[in-house]
């Protein structure tokens, strides 16, 4: 069934990062094959899967799980050995995990890339902010990012920062009433509210309609206003790239001189295919990328693949305000509250990003009330009352790279294709860097609740992860302490490149996908000049 192709470049993974890189290469006239474990699923079908889902709060539930392409919620796929139950949320279909992100597209600050030299913790990036800046631009224009050209994203209420050479392609959307009220009242306490740059276009962009506030970014935008990787999978295809679905890469074959000569993939229908190319890009998510490297035994001469897993672990706060705020109108999140964004204290504790969440709260409210035994007309009345006043603040902390926080291959389980499943060890216990930040965060929570005349519903959530996978295939300047150089080129194989948020050697507090796309585009540009 499957035909064998040779190509200039084979990209493994059709998500936002792989598809953007593949599109750039195809535009430059390179022959490109994209391998994807999952299938094309049309948006309408995912919307139907969501509507018929009995588990509306599970972001992966509208997406299928197969014995050969398992969802992270499949208990047969993920095992955890640490105290924290790590779930990476990745999706296996054309377009990848950006089908159910909320499209927050921040740029890292120049200081985020110099953590070691400025603050003595974490790592420096093997590049300057200015090296990545043009690729951030291209990534933002590919995604149609809406943003403010005047905000100081370092949270110091200064001039526009970080520097940018082009304005945002789409202007920032108007603020929801909910956001305005929180900003008015909490802002007075010395907190900076910053618009969140996002890939939910608010004007028609690249064939996508404007966001109309369906408030369903996670788990699927029903109208395609929110960017997802399938946009550039389609563009790559139209530019000449070939996408092969149901094709799970399981082996990168080593040849002479440290080159990778071929990738082997299996399909659920039994095909086992070997494809050769001049260069390979593994763009298979921060979790599945190290899995492929480990199972192929490549790029891992220093035993760093899969280690230094970082997420934006954090906590959250739910309270009710003393006035109706009408959460749930418009987009699911609009901005961040920055007090602990960047400063000399970063040597001692995590930076913190507080994000007011703007999801329609009725379901959570009803669930809570029913658990409390509220019934009848009282239930209706309380749902109405509380839903109008419901505030959720999710807070993310910067975590440090620790060699013991890692993803490895399971030693006991394999999937239907005979490929080992995943084992995680992720722990924050006793980590003073985040513990100190948690104390500060609790102080902030006290201020937020007081400023809003609020009543706490829950401020003891324990650690939560945000599926912001970083560090697992870290880039760096030194072959001994990193997996790739600044180009995403593995130190061990000069034609094997990685394009994933797993490259990020420090985590900051920002959603990492835009950085991953920018790095992937930069890598694709480097490859285009070589093959």
């Amino acid at each position: 069934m499957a035909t064998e192709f040779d190509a200039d470049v084979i990209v493994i993974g059709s998500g936002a990062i792989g598809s953007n890189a593949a599109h750039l290469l195809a535009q430059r006239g390179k022959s490109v094959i994209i391998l994807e474990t999952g299938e094309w699923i049309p948006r309408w079908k995912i919307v139907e899967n969501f509507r018929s889902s009995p588990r509306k709060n599970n972001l992966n539930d509208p997406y299928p799980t197969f014995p050969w392409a398992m969802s992270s919620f499949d208990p047969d796929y993920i095992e955890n050995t640490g105290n924290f139950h790590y779930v990476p949320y990745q999706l296996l279909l054309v377009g990848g995990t950006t089908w159910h992100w909320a499209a927050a597209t921040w740029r890292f600050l120049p200081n985020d890339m110099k953590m070691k030299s400025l603050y003595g913790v974490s790592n420096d990036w093997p590049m300057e902010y200015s090296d990545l800046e043009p690729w951030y631009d291209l990534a933002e224009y590919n995604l149609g990012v809406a943003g403010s050209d005047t905000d100081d994203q370092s949270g110091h209420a200064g001039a526009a920062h970080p520097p940018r050479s082009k304005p945002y392609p789409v202007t920032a959307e108007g603020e929801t009433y909910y956001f305005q009220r929180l900003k008015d009242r909490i802002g007075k306490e010395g907190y900076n509210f910053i618009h969140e740059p996002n890939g939910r276009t608010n004007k028609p962009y690249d064939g996508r309609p404007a966001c109309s506030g369906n408030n369903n970014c996670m788990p699927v935008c029903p109208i395609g206003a929110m960017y997802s990787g399938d946009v550039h999978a389609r563009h790559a295809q139209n530019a000449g790239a070939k996408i092969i679905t149901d094709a799970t890469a399981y082996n990168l074959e080593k040849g002479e001189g440290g080159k990778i000569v071929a990738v082997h993939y299996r399909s659920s229908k039994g095909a086992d295919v070997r494809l050769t190319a001049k260069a390979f890009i593994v763009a298979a998510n921060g979790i599945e990328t190290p899995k492929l490297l480990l199972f192929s035994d490549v790029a891992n001469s220093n035993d760093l693949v899969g280690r230094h897993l970082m997420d934006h672990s954090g906590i959250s706060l739910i309270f009710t305000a003393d006035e109706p705020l009408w959460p749930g109108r418009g987009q699911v999140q609009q901005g961040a509250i920055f007090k602990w964004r960047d400063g000399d204290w970063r040597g001692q504790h995590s930076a913190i990003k507080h994000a007011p969440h703007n999801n329609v709260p009725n379901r959570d409210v009803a669930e809570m009330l029913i658990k409390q035994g509220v019934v009848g007309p009282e239930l209706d009345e309380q749902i109405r009352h509380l839903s109008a006043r419901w505030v959720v603040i999710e807070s993310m902390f910067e975590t440090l790279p620790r060699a013991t926080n890692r993803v490895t291959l399971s030693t006991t389980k394999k999937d239907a294709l005979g490929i080992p499943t995943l084992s995680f060890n992720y722990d924050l216990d006793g980590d003073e860097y985040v513990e100190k930040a948690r104390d500060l965060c609790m102080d902030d929570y006290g201020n937020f609740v007081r400023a809003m005349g609020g009543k706490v519903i829950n401020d003891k959530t324990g650690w939560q992860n945000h599926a912001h996978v970083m560090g697992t295939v870290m880039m760096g300047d030194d072959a001994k302490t990193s997996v790739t150089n600044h180009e995403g080129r593995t130190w061990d194989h000069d034609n094997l490149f990685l394009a994933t948020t797993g490259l990020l050697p420090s985590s900051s507090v920002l959603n990492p996908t835009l950085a991953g796309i920018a790095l992937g585009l930069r890598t694709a540009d480097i490859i285009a000049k070589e093959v």
Partner: protein
Amino acid sequence: MRKTVFVFSALAFSTVAASSVLAQDAATSALIERGRSVAIASDCMACHRTPEGEGKPFAGGYTISSPLGPIVALNITPSKEFGIGNWSEAQFEAAMRDGVAPRGHLYPAMPYTAYRAMSDDDLHALFVYLQKDVKPVDEAPKAQTNLPFPFNIRLSMAGWNLFFNRATPFDNALAAPAGTERGKYLVDGPAHCGACHTPRNTLMAEDASQYLGGGDLGGWHAPNITSDPVSGIGGWSDAELVTYLKNGNAVGKSQAAGPMAEAVEHSFRHMPDDDLQAIANYLKTVPAIRSEAQTAPAYEHSKAKPAGIGTLDYGIDRSAAAMVNGTSVNGEELYVSACATCHQLNGAGTQDQFYPSLTSNRATGGMTPNNLVMAVVEGVHRKTNDFTVQMPAFKDELSNAQIAAVSNYVLQRFGNASLSVSEADVVELKNGGEVPLLVKATPWLMLGGAIFAALVLVLAAIFFWRRGKRNTLQHA
């Protein structure tokens, strides 16, 4: 003293000179402004622009899908090498009125049969505007017109022109503002409404007996815009007509998509209200044409027959194999998940009609499903003065059979239930609609190729004789 006089004279002279330059500048800029508004009314930009993104104004390259094949618009910037920078005004007039450019005959995708009716003054102003105010683009359009034989013989247009290019220039281009005279001038001249809205005869010329009675192009249907209250726009208020031209949206009547959206975007929304009113007034006077089978206007299909909520989500298969299978041809299932987020389960659209109702809608309640199908296939993109409308295209998302299924569901539930769409219809519309007789008959014409060529030569001879005569008369 003498010296003083001299200085005064010099001053006086330079003042006179300056004011005459100013007067000339003012005259030229007034002319340029008039030319600009003629260019807008003539919708030159819709075609003579680069096709990518916003497009370089007047650079050409946009492809018109004519029934005879793709026709590429030329660069009409004042570029000397690639545009019309070296054209004399007489050459410009020949292109605009006779369909003959310096390098040969134009195809009537360029609506010279309508432009022929433009007044001398408007044509002159347009020439001055294009030559003096438009930025030259020194590059040729990427694509080139390359029609199949025998249509690639441009000279064959000479004979066609003889029969079908017969309008006489108006001399009342500046008739009373907003009046029907002005409206007629705009409709028949620069705005070339008939190019789409008048059906074509077997030789692809506008059929005068069906003036503005509705035509097809590129898969889309340009509706009947005669004064008939059932088949035309007789039941529309003036305000609805003007708003439609301005925004492409007459709530509860129709929304512009496809080529009409382009006309709104590049032309109508930039025109003065008086001119839009003039067009509305004139259209109300156009002799009514009624489609035989039609008994009620499209917008009277106003009652939705929505599906029962209870049936919609019942029994959706949640097995993994079903969750990746997007091939269903159940129109209801497709409508609910692909369309209802915006147009709502009951087809009523949103309260503010930002997402329009599918009931009371010419695309669903008219006598052809073409515009419904094409809106699903290509989406709707329309820039207005207020905002940009974007309905996504579904051609990559849905198969032809699915597009037929969802169109039929919409027709059954919200529109003219007597219409239906087959998979083959969708394929045909995607390919530009029904193939005209002229093209179907081409093999026969080619069989008689020799006779055809001879005919062309004879017609050409007559044509050149006739043109020479007209020029002589004009210059006399």
